[in-house]
């Protein structure tokens, strides 16, 4: 039994050593690339925010809003956009809602006067060529400056994309759910 236990120990150590060397290499690259990745993510976020609220100076993150759900739409991030005199000019909500081919990640910007500032779809797996048109200006454009109190129902006040009704309905329902969520939290808020 003695020789075979020695053999097992040798096996253990070789595998351990190889994985440690691999870990060393990995962790060094990781620590080098970690700041760069963080910076990229921050830059991407800022671009998105700037795009929707160009005149906002500062974005305050509302931790408590993250994770709230309405139906199958889940809030991923929630920012209050403040302009120079620290007055709130609107808020920015990024969320996910199930679409035709999978989860759709989208961001909406809402101004204080109760209008949709803009809608942007950041990631989706809708069928290319059909559902994927929800990212087109033509479709999302119709949401700009829409009053929050509208019904947001396809074929009524929202024009669907031909041959992609399920995707159009999904995104519209997602926006509506998000508005209701932020509305009642808005009401419950300090204002």
């Amino acid at each position, binding site marked *: 039994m003695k020789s075979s236990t020695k053999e097992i120990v040798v*096996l253990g150590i070789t595998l351990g050593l190889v*994985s*440690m060397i691999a870990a060393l290499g990995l962790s060094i690259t990781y620590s080098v690339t970690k700041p760069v990745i963080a910076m990229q993510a921050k830059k991407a976020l800022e671009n998105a925010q700037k795009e929707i609220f160009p005149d906002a100076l500062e974005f305050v993150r509302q931790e408590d809003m993250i994770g709230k759900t309405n139906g199958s739409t889940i809030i991923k991030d929630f920012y209050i956009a403040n302009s120079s005199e620290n007055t709130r000019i609107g808020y920015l909500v990024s969320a996910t809602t199930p679409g035709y081919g999978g989860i759709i990640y989208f961001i909406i910007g809402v101004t204080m006067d109760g209008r949709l500032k803009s809608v942007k779809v950041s990631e989706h797996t809708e069928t290319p060529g059909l559902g994927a048109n929800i990212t087109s200006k033509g479709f999302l454009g119709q949401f700009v400056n829409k009053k929050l109190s509208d019904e947001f129902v396809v074929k009524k006040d929202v024009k669907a994309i031909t041959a992609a009704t399920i995707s159009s309905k999904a995104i519209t329902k997602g926006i509506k759910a998000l508005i209701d969520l932020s509305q009642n939290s808005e009401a419950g808020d300090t204002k």
Partner: protein
Amino acid sequence: MSPIITTVLWSSVVLLIIGILFGVMLGYFSKVLAVQEDPRIVSIAELLPGANCGACGFTGCTNLAENIVQGKAPIDRCKQLDSKSAIEISSILGIEIDSSNFTKKVAIVRCQGSVDNATQQVIVKDVPTCKLAVTLKMYAKTCLHSCIGYGDCANVCPYNAITIGSKGLPVVDSMLCTGCGLCVSTCPRKVIELIPYGKQVLALCNNQNKGKEVKDACKVGCIACMLCVKKCPKNAIRMENNLPVIDRKLCDVCGICVEACPMKTIRFIHEA
């Protein structure tokens, strides 16, 4: 700097532990669950060439090894076996075999009808394979026993040891050739033959006609003049349907027949 060191430290420690854990588990289970496989099968399989070529009719070398151990297959079933490993296998099995027919076998093309030697009937370029050339009777050389040269043997060789040379005749690289015999069976004119590797003399012609007919077809064809048979001191050569056959046991490769042959058909082979 410290956060980087901590991540490096932590990840190396964690992976080290996981590695050791898995290594020990693998080692332990490979011992405990070791199947009492017949060790002879593993060692024989390693001695076999391992090319899984299937020429022996079994699905790969391990399968052949199993059958050899169970006695269902003779050792020489594997044509590419060199004598050294054949003897080792037989010693594993503890049986005696005569190692004579285990010298390395190599393919040889018994035809020198290259482009400049053999008279060309008509240059036929786009016949894809020798087999097709034979069926359609579309071959370039007048000699009906010669190598057609469209490369069936080269295509079939798994070790690409046989390639068509610049003169239109296949060239065998005896280092790569394992004597598996696939080219011998595919050649429609049976010009290729397996011979034991080593310095020897051989008549490089496959034409069974006599005299004038051969002369018209090829500058280096055997016209069956029987000079080699008369001249050979050991009378190791006998004629079989107009082609000299040399008995390797009697022949001491003196080379008299090579000089005697007027058509230069008998040549030295594997001099190196």
